[in-house]
């Protein structure tokens, strides 16, 4: 398949392989993975760390971004569902757009599930890092845009729920438009005599 490979800027990728204590390094040979990453195209620096998510670990990433003028960062550690926000923030702190970070899930998707096959796990980890670096090469900065929120609300339906929501919002200071199809608000509740469990009047 033909895909455009043209790049306008020079790619400078940093790869950070995490040991996660023994969680990753107990199965995967992290140094071998790091060595492999050094040979990948556009990778200018590779670093291993005992705990990349720790303060010193994050500092290392920030220092390397500055020192090597990195424009893509690959962190090979745990699931992005856990620490992607952490590493994105670290990138942002030193002026790198957070969407230029790519994470490789060596822990949940590799070391923890292939504990009895360290060699194959290491080979898989290399493939995973290679996939992450490839993807990182095509990452683009993204901007999280802001939109304003009007300080007014539409409430559709004037039964007990609509009445309660309207009063809460109006009392909080917002303009409320309460739209009711019938000639009066009240809904089904107004048709009911007493209400359970306290047997008090509905209106």
């Amino acid at each position, binding site marked *: *398949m033909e*895909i455009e490979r043209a790049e306008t800027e020079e790619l400078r990728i940093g790869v950070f392989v995490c040991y996660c204590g023994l969680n990753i390094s107990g199965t995967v040979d992290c140094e071998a993975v790091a060595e492999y990453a050094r040979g990948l195209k556009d990778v200018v620096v590779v670093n291993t760390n005992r705990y990349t998510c720790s303060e010193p670990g994050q500092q290392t990433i920030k220092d390397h971004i500055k020192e090597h003028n990195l424009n893509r960062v690959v962190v090979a550690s745990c*699931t992005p569902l856990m620490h992607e926000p952490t590493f994105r923030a670290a990138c942002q702190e030193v002026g790198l757009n957070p969407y230029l970070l790519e994470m490789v*899930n060596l822990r949940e*998707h590799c070391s923890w*599930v*292939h504990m*009895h096959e360290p060699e194959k796990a290491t080979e898989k980890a290399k*493939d*995973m890092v290679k*996939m992450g670096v*490839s*993807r990182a*090469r*095509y990452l683009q900065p*993204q901007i*999280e*845009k802001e*939109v304003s*929120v*009007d*300080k*007014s*609300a*539409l*409430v*559709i*339906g*004037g039964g007990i*729920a*609509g*009445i*309660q*929501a*309207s*009063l*809460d*919002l*109006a009392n909080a200071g*917002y*303009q409320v*438009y*309460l739209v009711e*199809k*019938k*000639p*009066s*608000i*009240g809904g*089904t*509740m*107004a*048709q009911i*005599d*007493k*209400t*359970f*469990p306290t*047997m008090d009047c509905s*209106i």
Partner: protein
Amino acid sequence: MTDVGRHPRIELLTLSEVVDVQGYIGNFRIKVLRKARYVDEKECTACSDCLEVCPVTKPNEFDLGLSTRKAIYQPFPQAVPSAFVLNLEDCLGNNPIACGKCAEACDLKCIDYDMQDKEVEFRVGTVIVATGMDVYDPTELDEFGYTRFENVITSLEFERLINSGGPTEGHLIRPTDWQLPKRVAFIQCIGSRSEKRGNPYCSNICCMNTVKDSLLIKDHWPEVEIKVFYMDIRAFGKGFEDLYKRSKAAGVMYIRGIPGDIREDPEAKNLILLSEDRNEGKVVEHEVDMVILSVGLVPNSDSPIIRQLLTLSQTSDGFFMEAHPKLLPVDAPTKGVFFAGCAEAPKDIKDSVTQASAAASRANILMSAGKITIEAITSHIDEELCKACGICARVCPYHAIEFDKEKKLPARVIEASCHGCGACAAECTFGAITMRHFTDQQIISQIESALGENPQDKVVVFACNWCSYAGGDFAGISRLQYPPSVRIIRTMCSGRVDEKFVLHAFKLGAPIVLVSGCHFADCHYISANRWTQKRVEKLWDKLEKKGVRPERLQLEWISAAEGLKFAKVMKEMEELRKGVTMEEIEYTQKEL
């Protein structure tokens, strides 16, 4: 209710319907059709002078037809706004020969026969859907004789009969002879908990409503004999069990078993119920004076209109679907829209009020911040490449793509409404759609790296961010072991997996490709994974035509909690992989 009428910040629009909603979170443009009341709402003092001269008599809807009203009327005494309303369909009209009496009688001159329907437009930041429900109409359950026997009424009709503001001023009577019924039967679960007729779900409120109704009767007329026929009594809420006990202590008889048939004594108009007492294990006949059908709740008949206007979804019961059943229970899938009350599911007053306050609070969070950061992972349409076919607009679960069929202009993404599933990009055959942060290039480069060396040993797995990828994480956390042949590629939704990704993987020598996503009920993009399934089905046909075994493309729905299933499926993928020969792979590479 009156607080709403006089609140300076609530604009109450009655006799009104939302007819159009444009825009997106924080910036909705609303169009409301305000029907003419023909009575000046501000001037009318509800003095009733008009009512006395009106010659028209019609059934009163508020009392479910159990009483009458005039063509000009107040729906009920506590109505808000308190102003009268003129139903022009019932009115004889402002023709001096025909009528015009009410206008003459009104000192304040607030009746205007020429009043017109008006369209009102305004902008809002948030929307709360509190459209409520309807009660189940038991006509189809003919065995209970609702339409055949006058003394069979519904629980809502009973509410009007026992209400001091109702047609009988609170005197309990039965319809045929206007006498106090001495023996009353309640039948539960009418229209609820049935797979065959009515609805399969429990309507939540009917058990306690009957318990309450039985006590209302016992409080006023202790001599009335009450039998309640039920399947289960669900008295689960705070104070509910106490009330149930009180009802039993007051002598209300609870009989397990729903009557199969009701007959009427043609003379006395009494009703004979045949029922099996499941606790006693025998069939018994019960003669009563009146039967009250404890009817369930059904989605509001206007729900489809609101659903379309706000791009909402419904659960299988027909009520509105939440953004997440546990973690976002009052948020609608459309950002900036929230649910309150029975619109979302049948619930009692306390739960409706609780949910309404929660919805107001959720809306408040957005509005007090005054601004919101929108998703960066959105789709973008290249106007040059777009052929205006409209497929993207059709597959978008959020209607976030504007497309005008007639004008044939390029489609346009409303970024603030886009949730970033990527189904549009996967369906676009012209390559006109770029999915930010999950571009074709990015995904294809991962496929190429995964299959760079010894592709025959690898299984390519596409996993969605929310469910199957997280299910893989859970397998890891649980240390569930599976073969190291799988290479996982994450997308936000399985709906992003383009046909060309799968074919490209096969072309590069992948023996097995798995597309995985959320279970249908869990899809984080409403219904985007329905398109995943359709696409995989199409691919199976395509592969077969090319002489490639469709078995090599697999599909699986795995939730974030199904680590066990994830590991099991990965083992199955490895077994399938072993069954794919080199000849097969080479043939596939040549054919595709």
